[in-house]
């Protein structure tokens, strides 16, 4: 069940569209924030609120890479390893994350602090390698500054 605040938020979102179905993607973001992931419970809450069949909601939610179907760590690291980032050393950063935080791509660190997913170009190619941590862009990453940057996220 959604909190009242979320219900209000989704109602405001709904006003921007001619029908309820179009509010599904933004509503899934709200659900992900509230439930921590798009669990069956989250899907049911969205489906009920927007009067959309729950199988349909789940079909939509699982199509998009940025909706999470399993629990995440406290902070989400979204690291790009597409061509521009790769040729500028992104893969070494993947190894670094594994060795330093025990993070596998798609996984959660053992202490629950971080989860990490590999991204397919986040539009920071000119300042590669780059990553998003939660909503923050971090560019021109090196093996040296990566741990420093991540130190801010407890």
């Amino acid at each position, binding site marked *: 069940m959604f909190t009242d605040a979320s219900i209000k938020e989704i109602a405001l979102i709904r006003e*921007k569209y*001619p*029908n309820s*179905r*179009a*509010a*599904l*993607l*933004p509503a*899934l*973001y709200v659900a992900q924030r509230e439930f921590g992931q798009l669990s069956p419970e989250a899907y049911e809450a969205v489906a009920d609120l927007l009067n*959309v069949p729950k199988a349909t909601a789940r*079909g*939509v939610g699982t*199509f*998009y*890479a*940025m*909706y999470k179907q399993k629990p995440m760590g406290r902070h989400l690291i*979204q690291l790009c*390893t*597409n*061509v*521009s980032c*790769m*040729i*500028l050393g992104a893969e070494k950063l993947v190894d670094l994350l594994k060795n330093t935080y025990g993070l596998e791509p798609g996984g959660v660190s053992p202490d629950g602090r971080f989860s990490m997913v590999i*991204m*397919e*170009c*986040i*539009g*920071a*190619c*000119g*300042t*590669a390698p780059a990553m*998003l941590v939660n*909503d923050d*862009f971090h560019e021109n990453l090196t093996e040296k500054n990566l741990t420093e940057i991540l130190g801010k996220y407890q």
Partner: protein
Amino acid sequence: MGTILLKNIQNPNSTDIEEYKKTGGYTSLSKAIGMEPQQIIDEVKKAGLKGRGGAGFPVAMKWTFAAADPKFPKYLLCNADEGEPGTFKDRPILEKNPHILIEGMVISGYALKAEYGYIYLRGEYPAAKHILNKAIQQAYDNNLLGENILGKGITFHLAVHQGAGAYICGEETALIESLEGDRGQPRIKPPFPVNVGAFSKPTVVNNVETLSNLPYIIEVGGEAYASIGTPDCPGPKLYCVSGHVEKPGVYELPMGTKLKDIIYTHCGGIKGGKKLKAVIPGGISTPVLPPEKIDCPMDFVNMPKHGSMLGSGAVIVMDESVCLVKVCHRALKFFEHESCGKCTPCREGTGWLSAILGRIEQGHGAEEDIELLLSVAGNMLGKTFCPLGDGAAGVVQNFIKHFRPEFEEHIKAKKCTVYG
């Protein structure tokens, strides 16, 4: 030429509407509202504006179809999904010059008689979301959006609709599906979005950069605009360069600037003075070029003559240290990840190509694998539902076309010979 699209972005307050107005922002909108909608479309036609998303479709033609359709309300959708690997040219507009996009959209909406606009913004640009929302609110507060724009009784509503990580949603019909709350799978065409688009209504989908050209076109007129760039492809173009150059970044240059000049004159040449090995000129879906083929004007008409495409204008520069088998594999992993799954050849083919390339990269390639790659790619090219499959097949075909010996060596040596 002077900066047009990226005007004033060095100003730390460039996203503020007052700052935008200070340098002439929103005067084009006032001017446009004094014109007839058809006049605006005529100016855009004179300007020869072509879509900047990658397809290069003549904007005025698309608008004419939509304007002629009797159904209302009409929708203007800004494609801010910028997902083509290597592309980051729309980001500075979204994050540093949002008002030029908003102004461009209101002008375009007015010309199309569209009442509703959405900016389909990729989920990977969270900063842009906040900046755009703030800028949109400012525009509403200043009567530049809403029910009675500039007191002239014109309606245009604008909102941001955030994507959630699907490259395929950069395709206009998949974008519309995603806006409507569905999985982002492309639609059967015809009908085309200009007739049956968002919510079954006439819809125009244009790229961020495309729409951002409108204020300048209105300001100086189509003819003057067309004096920039080349006769076939006028106007300014944002080229974004990444990889092994001294000065990667976004460069606003006249359309048709030569690729060679972009790399060596503007970006300072190859980083560390190394040797150039390969260039992808317009984003990963465009055919890769060997060093001897970079003396080509970067526009929609000339690039095909030189064996590639302008695409989004995203230049990826690779030096001698790069293993092209690895790059090719990584590119196919991208397509495999982003395939929507609707059509057989792309859904199965991207995975197959990726697996073969992975095997080759790991040192388990066989001699016949190169012909197999070409055969599988050939079974995809032209058979898929949308161009994503063509892009994937094209990458394999073009990498092998220009760099076959490297693939053969990699297979024979059972490891990468570039890294030694």
